[in-house]
């Protein structure tokens, strides 16, 4: 039997619209020092942290292989360092694999991003498209999400009013998350009146621009129990990558998420996901994605997103009590912050948004235009 891997500690900076006074190295260092203080760990091949996994986006950082510019603040000097440029939850998977292989016992995962640095987030995600066919027509992740939202909303009975409810709730919850600063609460009327970006997406439906860093310590079971009395076990992870061209996909079908979830559930030994989770943290970059991803995860009946919101589903299913992506985390870190928030819940450290006695949680991450690549992680405590 492969050895279990536990999350031993979680740290994050505040998530702010514009950390103008900090370099990305400074944000990462803040998280590293917090993690070392919480665990008492040092970097060493003999019982200490044996590997650093960073998460960063070269174009947001404006550096090629930007992790090479921060090995010192990753504790990676003369050590092993690996970068995840895919969505951040994938770093949890890398760490799981490294520990399960037996090569290392303790791994640092540390992601950062300053979305305030480039002139616009859309200009950066535009670069994800190919230069001959899809860049010339102006695609970026917002426009791609508009296409997906249009296709999904009709199929799931999700309207402007539902989307406003999702945003209002996220902003309310964000006030209870001490790591979210400077994000005003909004009314449904304000959401409904906010300008359209890419129909049916409105400005307030989009995850706010944010800067910050997040980190986790992962360890093999026996080491995890030495480091903390409340390890959070990674019970199963699943991924799925869909086609690159939007026209090759059925944008409303949730196909890749259903695959990723099925893989994660099978690996975690979950037969009936509907009632399996005390907490769900999903990456809702745009409001329509909260009901849509819930359908894809099999936690809401397919096509039932609108009815689920009407019935108070998000509260009942304890979805994104942290505020979720709609409270503002950078694109590349969405899933990693979800895992961090889920781990805080299972450790009983979620503060004002703690679910009493939470035992099992789901964390979800997504990257690429219109949800091309999904990662689902199932986390549990003893």
């Amino acid at each position, binding site marked *: 039997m492969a050895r279990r891997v536990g999350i031993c500690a979680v740290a994050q900076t505040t998530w702010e619209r514009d950390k103008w006074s900090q370099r990305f190295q400074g944000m990462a260092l803040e998280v590293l020092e917090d993690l070392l203080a919480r665990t008492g760990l040092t970097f060493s091949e003999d019982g200490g942290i044996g590997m650093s996994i960073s998460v960063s986006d070269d174009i947001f950082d404006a550096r090629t292989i930007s992790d090479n510019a921060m090995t010192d603040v990753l504790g990676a000097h003369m050590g092993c360092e690996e970068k995840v440029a895919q969505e951040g939850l994938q770093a949890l998977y890398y760490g799981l694999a490294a520990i399960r292989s037996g090569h290392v016992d303790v791994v640092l995962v540390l992601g950062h991003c300053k979305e305030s640095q480039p002139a616009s987030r859309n200009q950066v995600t*535009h670069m994800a498209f190919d230069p001959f066919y899809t*860049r010339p027509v*102006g695609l970026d992740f917002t426009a791609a999400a508009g*296409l997906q939202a*249009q296709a999904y909303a009709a199929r799931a009975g999700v309207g402007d009013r539902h989307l406003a409810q999702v945003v209002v709730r996220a902003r309310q919850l964000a006030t209870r998350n001490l790591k979210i600063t400077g994000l005003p609460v909004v009314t449904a009327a304000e959401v409904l009146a906010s*300008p359209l*970006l890419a129909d049916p997406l409105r400005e307030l439906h989009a995850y706010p621009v944010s800067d910050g860093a997040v980190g986790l310590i992962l360890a093999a079971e026996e080491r995890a129990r030495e480091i903390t009395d409340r390890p959070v076990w990674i019970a199963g992870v699943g991924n799925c990558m869909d086609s690159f061209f939007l026209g090759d996909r059925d944008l409303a079908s949730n196909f890749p998420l259903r695959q990723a979830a099925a893989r994660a559930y099978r690996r975690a030994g979950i037969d009936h996901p509907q009632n399996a989770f005390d907490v769900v943290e999903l990456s809702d970059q745009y409001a329509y994605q909260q009901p849509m991803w819930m359908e894809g995860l099999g936690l809401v009946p397919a096509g039932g997103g609108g009815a689920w919101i009407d019935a108070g589903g998000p509260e009942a299913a304890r979805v994104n009590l942290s505020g979720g992506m709609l409270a503002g985390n950078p694109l590349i870190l969405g899933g990693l912050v979800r895992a961090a928030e889920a781990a805080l819940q299972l450790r009983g450290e979620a503060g004002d948004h703690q679910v009493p006695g939470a035992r099992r949680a789901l964390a979800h991450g997504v990257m690429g235009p219109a949800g091309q690549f999904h990662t689902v992680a199932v986390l549990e405590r003893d």
Partner: protein
Amino acid sequence: MELTPDLRDCFTVPGKLALPYTYFAGRIGSRFLLALQEEHRILGVRCAGCATVLVPPRATCDRCQADLADTWVEVGPAGRVENFTVVRYADRHVPEPVPLVLALIRLDGADTPLVHRLGGMDPEAVRVGLRVTAVFAAEPRDTLLCIDHFRPLAPQPSAAGPRPQGG
């Protein structure tokens, strides 16, 4: 001197990430673009494995891993709007004018819709199911913009009507 982290020491500097590239369209991409440029014909490829006609064409079917070289079929120039959004923000990378209608257009004879812009009509009047046809650029271009845009096949009323999406 002591280290005293101080906001007065912090400032920001305007800069740029700028890199010159030479992108290569490849054999299949070049053939597709030249047919658009020189013959005003739209080509796709047909996978023998899954019988799917893919546009834009590519070398390999990502479902079957089949080699798609020299499986050319002609598609369009007319097609059907399968889905669309109206991009209402201006930015460096967004072609003018905005609002810009980006649509997934399934060309006649193709299975995979192509993302392109719609013109020649009121953005508020776009509907799923609308029949459209390619309008080729007057001057040769080295990208999909050899097709400048798609326009409705039939004359469209200019007044805005109810939107197709819920709520």
